[in-house]
């Protein structure tokens, strides 16, 4: 979850009142935010990804005001005479743009740093590291009313990038500035450019703004643009920034005309209208709220409400609330405003009988017998590596075609899923060579291997494996265990000689019952033991529980 820093004094100034830390913590619960730390007057907050409008102190102040009985001012909107002409050249590079103007704010240091942080947080989260959207803010007094949005080869672009002393070429900006290095991969040889009638460059999205049009202390009117690939998305992001900045005493928010080659339109600043019924709210929440109290609660969440009749109201949702996709999202707003802790939990009696997975009875029986035979249960991760599963076990490399490997492992130790359990047991023993002997261990768990027949192309099966290691241990000792185990389930195992690279020749067998191969058993090859740094002879078996379940007619369906 994203974190933001806010200045508590700044928040109190915006609220025109101060709050105790306890009050603040409680109020922030309504916004799904949480205080992580307070140092001096700086608070670090964890904010929720679904509410990007709360990634700045202005948005938080706006959300808190109605909760403490204060009113939010409605900021008037109108249409400006500014326009952006989108040239065909940019359509292949970064085709969508939206822009708004916020008038009458007095930019000071606090506002600058808060706005800068807000912009960066939106870039990181909602805008997917500028890939989906990239935001620019400019001092409008430095720009003409018509702005062109076009694409140019990097080598033909020249301007002074933000925080730089000199004019640089586009390709130099990519190579020699921090922002260029970080975001350069988002564009090719051609970069989008915003440039006004006087030839003043505003920015080269999504890389960097120009120094010439930057916001400074004292800037009054701010132009905001968002570029990206989806017209609706960039409009949404632009509105969030505009409405939050406008909380700093703006007189107006103004829209800017966008002239696309195919269409001219004005990104709207209007509220989204949603019809909401009392029924939906009460049926979902299990409450009995009147239409009036619902209206009151939604007003606490900054919506504009018109009561239509005793059962229906019209909700006007502020444009910065991009998380509202469906009336159900407003139902949650009602619940939050009502207070989760005020909702009395009810435990409905629904008469159902609980069943475990049928295979669990088998799993439990096997566990009970193995424990009775003196074996300690262990647990391994399903994630492991081909080194443990194949190489250490002397299996041929070609077996890799059976294994599910991940494309993005985080360590060499965990790169794939296990296809059998015995290697995990040996790996476990390798960490216990000094523990008292004999060591007798077992594990029950799932293995996964490739299987072209299933939609997910995999086969997952439950298995049991056991290992016995001590100064001298024999095939017979582990065979006695496997035999006793299978006999418990009225199975009649046969042991057929098996040549297997992991086991000693003449001391390994395939376990067969009801004409099905259900497992393997044997004394591990000394080379295998040494691969795991083991010093004592070890005998082991592995039996497929899923196959036993099939033989015993226990259902193996799991859904």
């Amino acid at each position, binding site marked *: 979850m994203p974190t933001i820093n806010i200045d508590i004094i700044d928040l109190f100034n915006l609220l025109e009142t101060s709050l105790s830390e306890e009050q603040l913590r409680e109020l922030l619960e*309504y916004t*799904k935010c949480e205080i992580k730390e307070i140092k001096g007057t700086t608070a670090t907050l964890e904010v*929720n990804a679904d509410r990007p409008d709360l990634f700045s102190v202005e948005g938080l102040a706006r959300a808190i005001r109605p909760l403490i009985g204060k009113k939010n001012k409605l900021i008037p909107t109108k249409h400006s005479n500014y326009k952006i002409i989108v040239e065909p050249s940019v359509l292949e590079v970064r085709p969508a743009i939206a822009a708004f103007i916020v008038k009458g704010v007095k930019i000071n240091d606090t506002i600058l740093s808060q706005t800068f942080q807000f912009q960066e947080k939106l870039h990181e*989260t909602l805008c997917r590291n500028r890939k989906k959207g990239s935001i620019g803010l400019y001092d409008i007094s430095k720009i003409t009313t018509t702005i062109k949005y076009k694409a140019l080869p990097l080598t033909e672009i020249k301007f002074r990038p933000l925080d730089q002393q000199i004019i640089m070429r586009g390709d130099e900006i990519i190579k020699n500035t921090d922002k260029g290095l970080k975001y350069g991969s988002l564009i090719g040889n051609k970069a989008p450019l915003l440039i006004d009638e006087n030839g003043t460059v505003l920015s080269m999205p999504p890389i960097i703004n120009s120094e010439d049009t930057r916001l400074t202390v004292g800037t009054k009117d701010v132009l905001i643009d968002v570029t990206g690939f989806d017209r609706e998305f960039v409009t949404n992001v632009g509105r969030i920034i505009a409405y939050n900045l406008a909380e700093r005493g703006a007189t107006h928010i103004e829209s800017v005309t966008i002239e696309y080659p195919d269409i001219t339109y004005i990104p709207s600043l209007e509220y989204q209208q949603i019809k909401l019924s009392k029924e939906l709210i009460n*049926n*979902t*929440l*299990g409450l009995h709220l009147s239409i009036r109290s619902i209206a009151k609660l939604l007003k606490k969440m900054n919506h504009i409400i018109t009561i239509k009749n005793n059962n229906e109201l019209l909700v006007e949702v502020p444009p910065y609330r991009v998380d509202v*996709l*469906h009336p*159900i999202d407003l*139902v*949650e707003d009602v619940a*939050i405003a009502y207070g*989760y*802790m005020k*909702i009395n*939990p009810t*435990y*409905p009696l*629904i*008469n*159902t009988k*609980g069943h*475990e997975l049928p295979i*669990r009875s088998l799993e439990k029986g096997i566990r009970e017998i193995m*424990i009775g035979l*003196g*074996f*300690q*249960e*262990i*647990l*391994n*991760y*399903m*994630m492991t590596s081909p080194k443990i599963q194949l190489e250490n076990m002397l299996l041929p490399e070609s077996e890799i075609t059976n294994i599910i*490997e*991940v*494309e*993005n*492992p*985080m*360590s*060499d*130790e965990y790169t794939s*899923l296990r296809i059998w359990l015995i290697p995990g047991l040996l790996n476990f023993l390798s960490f*216990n*060579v000094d*523990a*008292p002997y004999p*060591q007798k*261990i077992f594990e029950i768990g799932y293995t996964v291997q490739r299987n072209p027949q299933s*939609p*997910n*192309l*995999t086969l997952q099966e439950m298995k049991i494996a056991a290992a016995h290691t001590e100064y001298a241990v024999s095939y017979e000792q582990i065979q006695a265990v496997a035999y006793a185990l299978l006999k418990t389930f009225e199975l009649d195992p046969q042991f057929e000689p098996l040549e297997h690279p992991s086991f000693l020749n003449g001391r390994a067998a395939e376990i067969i019952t009801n004409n099905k191969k259900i497992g393997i058993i044997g004394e591990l090859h000394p080379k295998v033991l040494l691969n795991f740094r083991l*010093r004592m002879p070890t005998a082991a078996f592995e039996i497929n529980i899923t196959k036993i379940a099939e033989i015993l007619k226990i259902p193996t369906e*799991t*859904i």
Partner: protein
Amino acid sequence: MIPLNKITVNDIEYSILYELRSSYEPIDAQFLSKKLGIPISTLMSTLEALKERGLITINVQELYIYKLTQEGILYSEKGLPERQIYNAIISLGGSATMEQLLNTVALPKNLIELGIGHARKLGWITLKQESDKFVLKALPQIVESNLEQLIQKLSRGPLTVRPVEDITFQELVRRKLAERKVIKTYKISLTDTGKQLLDQGLIILSTEKSTLTSDDILSGRWTTLSLKSYNVKALPPIIYPGRKHPYISFLEEVRKILLEMGFSEAEGFFVEQEFWNFDVLFQAQDHPAREIHDSYRVKQPSLGTLEDSELVEKVRNTHESGWITGSRGWRYKWSAEIARRLILRTQTTSVSVRYLYKHKNPPIKMFALSRVFRPDVLDPTHSMEFHQCEGIVMDKNLTFRDLLGFLKEFSNRLGITKIKFKPSYFPFTEPSVEGYIYHEKLGWIEALPGGMFRPEVLAPLDIKYPVLAWGIGIDRLAMAVLGINDIRELFTRDLSYLRNFPWLRSHANY
């Protein structure tokens, strides 16, 4: 010379004394135990008795055994952090910035910093300021450090050494690369008295028998038999019972509670298509959780098959424009190819939606208690594989209040009585809730996330009734209940830890 008296000994004592007599040097107790086939605990109590009678001396000596830890083994293969740093700088042409190292060396940041510290201390690298950046420079050639040599030695097996303070061994233990165990050895030799008695044939084997046999009983010999008394106060040999894994005990307890509450168990697929793990759950295809940093993608085969094309179209329409759900949708172009990508499932919610797809009639109470995967480096607080406990309830007229009721009831049955609810966000539920439970030691823990499935999830699955859902990271709960601080202990590789785990701790009255 004072004349010596005859001494009577039992068969075990006799064999020990004769073994000692045939050796010029003191004999190790372990060796004696193996050679004579006497369990070490019996041997030690017998030796104590012989010592008290002045026949032998026992010389106790301490030894240190050093054994590599998991971390140590890893470094023995890949090199210590300082070596990895050094090699990385060399591969970058002999000098590198911190940022470059962070991108090159496959170690977490704190270990990279640690490695730099050690490499600087060894004089392998130096830190220089160049214009406004700090640059690390490596010597062209270096020799293996003492620590590296020691680790190489240890990688072939544990080392036993006399207890001397050595600076390299100290560093080894301090950096947790190896564990030190102290063992005691017992060297046994005859006293002069013992030797003389043996030489003069004054040690007599007693006619006492040490074991009562079946023959003795059946033949009636037991009536005249003289049986040796045991030192019943001596401790027995240590044996270890077969035991259930403590984490399994906990999971079984949770399963039992859910069964009692009328929930039926289901299980899905560890390797799952993104479709079931994300798309059906209305998680947009560019949602950060779907990025390569947050889910494990399967290398080969990489794409599965979407079976129900009708469902696929419904999901596509819901994502793109909301379909008939009354939603605006995510408003982007949905890709079937992305939905077909195979991943290791990141949430058991994939089991819930598969279950709803198959079972559409109320009432339904289902749970899944199984493993999920997320790309993470294993450390005390993170794991790439962990358990989730997923539950859904579907019935006519279910409400958000009922969801809170289920969460409360479940935690009550786990023995947790203090619980509070806060608003939260999950892409597939609305309204959503986070339940916090109160733990005596840890305070309030975020443990019970839940919500009601969104219409965008239910409509494509053709579900007509409300569905309450929750998915609990059960590992954190297990750690709190089992008193564990390190998540890796749930999958411990320490056999002694499992053998000695206090039974009551894994069977506490939750």
